[in-house]
């Protein structure tokens, strides 16, 4: 059968999500952010909540998230996305509210907001992109940077005596009564992406059912910051990041 005969709308099995617009994304080639954006667009559309979803954009690489997904967005100050999400959800309980944050935003400057929002059990979803580096500002050390990992502010590798240990913030959030779902996913293969999508959907459903805060951590890559190709960085992530940040459901109640 000719290829042109296959390319018909009724045979389509996969394409760009409807809620994702045509703006060219500013992310570097191979960045995990793009895949997570696609998953959010798909889940929100599948749930029929496109008109009722409010995203809270962070400061960091994903600061322009509002340019790419056609839902309502609020831009928060650095690290304050869970606080803004709290306000948005409390004032609009019928809306689905999520914050989208990187590790520099959520685990460094926004630690207090994150922990207190989770401890209050706000009915929001926190999408946490953990790539162990500050990508936007040029690859500086983040709280989540692995021991021995080289960044522009620890060029000889992270040293626990000088810089402390990597912060496993999702494991801290598991201890809080307010969280209902804490899970760690990756988006490096099609199978992992399908699994991550299920967890994302579960988190969004929890928020609408008033069960508490859902934290979906994505262990991600930063090909530019790590100075590797996208494929190499996926392999590096599985070899080095995943042993430190084990995948799977950490809490589900």
């Amino acid at each position, binding site marked *: 059968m000719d290829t042109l005969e296959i390319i018909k709308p009724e*045979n*389509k099995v996969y*394409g760009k999500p409807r809620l994702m617009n045509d703006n060219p994304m500013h992310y*570097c*080639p191979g960045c995990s952010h793009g*895949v997570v954006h696609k998953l959010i667009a798909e889940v929100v559309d599948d749930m029929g909540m496109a008109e009722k979803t409010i995203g809270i954009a962070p400061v960091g690489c994903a600061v322009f998230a509002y340019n790419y997904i056609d839902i309502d967005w609020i831009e928060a100050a650095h690290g304050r996305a869970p606080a803004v999400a709290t306000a948005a959800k409390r004032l609009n309980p019928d809306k689905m509210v999520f914050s989208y944050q990187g590790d520099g935003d959520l685990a460094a400057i926004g630690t207090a907001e994150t922990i207190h929002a989770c401890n209050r059990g706000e009915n929001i979803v926190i999408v946490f992109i953990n790539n162990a580096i500050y990508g936007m500002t040029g690859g500086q050390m983040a709280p989540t940077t692995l021991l021995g990992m080289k960044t522009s502010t620890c060029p000889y590798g992270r040293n626990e005596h000088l810089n402390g240990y990597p912060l496993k913030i999702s494991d801290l959030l598991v201890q809080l009564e307010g969280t209902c779902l804490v899970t760690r996913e990756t988006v490096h293969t*099609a199978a992992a992406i399908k699994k991550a999508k299920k967890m994302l959907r579960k988190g969004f459903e929890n928020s609408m059912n008033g069960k508490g805060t859902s934290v979906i951590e994505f262990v991600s890559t930063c090909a530019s910051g790590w100075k590797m190709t996208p*494929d190499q960085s996926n392999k590096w992530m599985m070899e080095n990041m995943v042993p430190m940040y084990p995948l799977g459901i950490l809490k589900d109640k």
Partner: protein
Amino acid sequence: MAKIKGAVVIDKDRCKGCDLCVVACPADVLILGQEVNGKGYNYAQVANSDECIGCANCGYVCPDGCITVYKVKL
């Protein structure tokens, strides 16, 4: 046995040539070509369209949503 045949369409202007789809493809259908698009990236191209099984792995891993996948059962 039912045979499955797929087809991939790549939005070459949106592609950033990250190579993830080429790595994800189990049937070696895609390659990064020598030509560059408007942004200067070597965009992904379909080299072996006959081998495509329509698994959509390339579409799932594409961070920029450049890939549309079609599938038919023959």
